[in-house]
């Protein structure tokens, strides 16, 4: 189930495209943008939760006056260290806890409404599963809770088991599974109803690097299909790769809120990645940089291959050599029904009656104001970028065309530079799960 790099890049197109759009200044920002006109899918207002002891004395204020919204189609991150209130917020959103004060609406209704729960998939921070059921029975059971027909349950169970790589061990009781395998089946049960809203509490916890990458790929694929995802994690790298927007909690309060770019962009640095250079060239570049900007190069390094990439490639080789494993397999493909393939009867009718879910917005324009200085790039890259450097409008036009054509966004800078970097080549402002990062 190792996702190849091309697929990783494709799957990253949605959020990244949105980030590119954000970076041009006409983006969602902290609440504005094209989706802001829509009703929030989750509305949390002044939410407070105080836990009390047996004698009704206040024991802990887990959430304190938290307000945020999650809009349809976005991947939203709830970040914070342990005990910051992330899980409590999620449990209130799911009706597992009752708020002490404030209001929570999901799909415009109280979280306890059963109609709301039909549209939600939930993965708790640990996979709490019936130990005596096997994987197939587990998925079948949760499918029944959604009143899915037997045929639909069977098909989805097969696809999900294949997707999470547990087909070969589907008849083993869940109690015999490793933590990672239990996590996989937990994720599968959260998807059995093809939910519109997916709430994932620490989804990559307990997963191996390949599983982690698969989850991230899956999230981005679901995001492309217009699913709304709320993601809680303290593994910041995972969140950074996926989410469109996030809040950072500490002490039960929101400390920061915004898009990845807004929160993470470093506006005082530039990174240039090329092929291997000799010392003379580096000295020459430093001279030009100093000449043009008066600044020195802070560091020059030889990038190492990411351990994750190395790990994935090793496993991929093992899979290619058909080495048997008693655990989860890693060559599963995303379940068809999650990709919109082979729709169920009801879905088919719905699709015929109305247009399919709108695709996530892709970059409408390349960066116009941000990014490296074009003249500097020109002097560094030579004649190949001369035409591009002729005008920012032309640059934007080409970048947009490139993004639309390849459905990837990390080629913008490469095209500006005119080099032929492969899919692992990094970008100045975005990262992908499979892509390199200078």
């Amino acid at each position: 189930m190792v996702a190849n790099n091309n697929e990783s890049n494709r799957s990253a197109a949605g959020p990244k495209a949105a980030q590119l759009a954000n970076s041009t200044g006409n983006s969602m920002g902290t609440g504005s943008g094209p989706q802001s006109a829509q009703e929030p899918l989750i509305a949390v207002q002044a939410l407070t939760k105080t836990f009390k002891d047996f004698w009704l004395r206040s024991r802990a204020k887990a959430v304190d006056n938290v307000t945020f919204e999650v809009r349809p189609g976005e991947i939203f991150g709830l970040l914070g260290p342990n005990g910051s209130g992330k899980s409590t917020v999620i449990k209130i959103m799911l009706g597992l806890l009752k708020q002490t004060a404030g209001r929570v609406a999901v799909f415009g209704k109280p979280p306890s409404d059963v109609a709301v729960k039909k549209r939600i998939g939930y993965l708790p921070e640990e996979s709490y599963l019936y130990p005596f059921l096997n994987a197939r029975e587990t998925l079948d059971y949760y499918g029944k809770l959604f009143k899915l027909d037997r045929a639909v349950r069977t098909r989805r169970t097969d696809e999900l088991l294949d997707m999470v790589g547990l087909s070969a061990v589907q008849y083993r009781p869940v109690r015999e599974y490793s933590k990672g395998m239990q996590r996989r089946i937990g994720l599968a049960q959260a998807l059995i109803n093809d939910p519109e809203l997916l709430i994932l509490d620490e989804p990559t916890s307990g997963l191996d690097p390949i599983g982690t990458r698969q989850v991230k790929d899956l999230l981005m694929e679901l995001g492309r299909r217009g699913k709304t995802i709320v993601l809680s994690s303290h593994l910041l790298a995972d969140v950074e790769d996926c989410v469109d927007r996030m809040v950072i909690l500490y002490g039960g309060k929101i400390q920061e809120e915004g898009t990845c770019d807004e929160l993470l962009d470093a506006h005082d640095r530039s990174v240039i990645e090329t092929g291997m250079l000799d010392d003379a060239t580096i000295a020459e570049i430093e001279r030009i940089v100093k000449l043009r900007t008066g600044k020195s190069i802070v560091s020059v390094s030889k990038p190492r291959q990411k351990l994750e990439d190395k790990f994935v490639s090793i496993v991929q080789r093992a899979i290619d050599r058909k080495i048997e494993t008693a655990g989860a397999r890693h060559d599963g493909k995303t379940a068809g029904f999650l990709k919109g393939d082979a729709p169920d009867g009801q879905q088919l009718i719905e699709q015929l009656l109305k247009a399919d879910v709108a695709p996530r917005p892709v970059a409408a324009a390349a960066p116009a104001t941000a990014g490296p200085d074009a003249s500097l790039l020109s002097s560094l890259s030579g004649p190949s970028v001369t035409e591009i450097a002729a005008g920012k409008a032309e640059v934007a036009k080409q970048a947009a065309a490139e993004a639309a054509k390849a459905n990837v966004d990390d080629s913008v800078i490469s095209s500006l530079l005119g080099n032929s970097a492969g899919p692992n080549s990094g970008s100045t402002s975005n990262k992908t799960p499979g892509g390199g990062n200078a």
Partner: protein
Amino acid sequence: MTELLRKLDRWQQLRTFKIAATIAVVLLAIIAVVFQVVSSQRAAQQLPTAAMPEAPAKIENAPPPANPTEVAILAQQEQQRRDLELTVRLLNELRAARLSSTSVYTGIVSLAAVSLIVIWLGLALTYVAIVAVGGLIAGPILAVGLSGRAFILSAEALSQLGWFMVGGLILAAAFTALVRAMGAVLSGSHPITAIAKNVLAEAVRMKISLVFIVLLIMLMASLPGLLDASTPLRYRVQTFLQYATAGSFTLIAMLAIFLGTASVCFEQRDKIIWQTATKPVRAWEYVAGKWLGVSAVCLILLSVCGLGVYMFTEYLRQQPAIGEVAAFEPRNPQEVLTEDRLILEYRILVGRTSELFTLTGETTTAISAAVETKFADAERIYREETAKTAEPPDRNKIIKQVREEMLGQYLAIESGKSELYTFTYLEGALRVGKPITFRYVVNAGGNLPSDVYRITIWPKNQPPMIREVHLGEAMTMTMPASFIDAETGSLELRIYNGDLANGILNPQTISFPPDGLEISFPVTGFAANYTRVAFVNAIKLMFLSMIGVVCGTFLAFPVANLVAFGIFICAESAPFLKDAVDNMRVEEVDGSIIWWAWIAEKIALPIAGAFRFYGDLKPVGNLVEGKLLPTIDITGAAVILLGLTVGLFAIGSAIFRSRELATYSGQ
């Protein structure tokens, strides 16, 4: 090994396998039927019939004989004639049924049908394995034991072990089939059935509940081996029914409570509930699903035990009774049916209804007159009393007092004298035509165990019967239904305090308690009565399942169990509690209150009152005595118990809906 078993299990559930196995079974059944047809044509069988031995003629409207010796002779002759009339027909019917070739066909078809059910339940290989284990392990042990040879263990121990294993395998086979069948019934795409089926899986796969199930199967399988073959057959049957029915019910009830609380409590403790509660499942659906699942497990076990008990009882019925060389064949050729067999067939393995004596018109008039006299006296005294310190006379109190006094007089017979007792509403017994049973308890003096009295029971227009009685003990005797007056549907019994035939008088006055004279007669067979008992037990178990589930919704496992078991014990012991409180002294002789007794009474009375409907049912006691559980009692108890179950269900659902299922993770 485990993986191989899982593969085999999946294999036996494949449609292809089922179709192939079905074809094989049908072919075998056809071959068996053809073989039976051919063999039955070769040997045309003559059904043996029991000849009616000569018996003395019935005495019609004979006047009471004056000579005691004549009375004794007449009584003996009448007893012989009655036994013959009653049993010959039954015996021939039973023999005919056992030897009929129709029953062979029925057997073949039944076996084929059961095999097909097993195949389509996906248990064909499981059953093959069970048969193989039975044949390879239990079979040889049993064979060695039955052959009378000892090998490590004594022959008797070996045969008992063999039967124990065979019984256990049969029960296990029935259990697996019923579990699979119930799983198929609960396979719908609805949260309630899904949750129920999950509980079923939990019950058979988790070690905690499996312990109960294995214990139950072992208990049931071991009981037959504990029966003493030297005791009368009726006692063996009664002992087995008593222990098997009561023991299995108690174990299943404990499992119902345990599984009900565990299933809900552990799901909350282990946070598995989060996954279910975040799905579109309403609180009432969750509670209903859990209850349905626990009830389903209980019903399966009850059915397995019920089938086991019923079939083994029928097996025992086919064993020789005391005085028989083989079942229904008395050792004495003059005897048609032994006493042991008679009591077993007409008093125990039946459903009898009973009637107490009716007060005659004279007695009722006398009571009324006495009441009026006494009330008038009381009023006069009250009017004459100027101080008016006493309360005005209470008519109801006087009626009760007079009635008790006169009833006591009516039920007491002085030595050498007699009293007539009439039993009415016995038309049912006439219709059934089977023997009726007269039960009587005689008290005299201090009911010394060493005292044996003799009384004469003389039915109207029938010869008298002399009986030796042990004081204070319930005695029974059987009479033909023909003793009942066909016109009035009543039976008149005159009871003499003494042996009228031999002129022996008892030293003291004898008396009967108010419920100490009773006529009972069979209205249904054992199967129907057992079904009623099973129904009552099922209702009780469903009630207990709901108690377990509801306690689990808001209490931690140990506390929930404690509360649920407390309720169970209170309910089961309600009649005992009521009797104990009634006989407990709350005041000292000087009128001062005994506080501990007073407190105990105040606690015990509401409990006893609340669960009286539950405890008064006594299904097992009635079954062992061969008494029919009255329809009205069953219906009443079922309505009350189901009503309470619904009430508890509403409470549990409300609690569950209002609960916060997640907890503070920072703890």
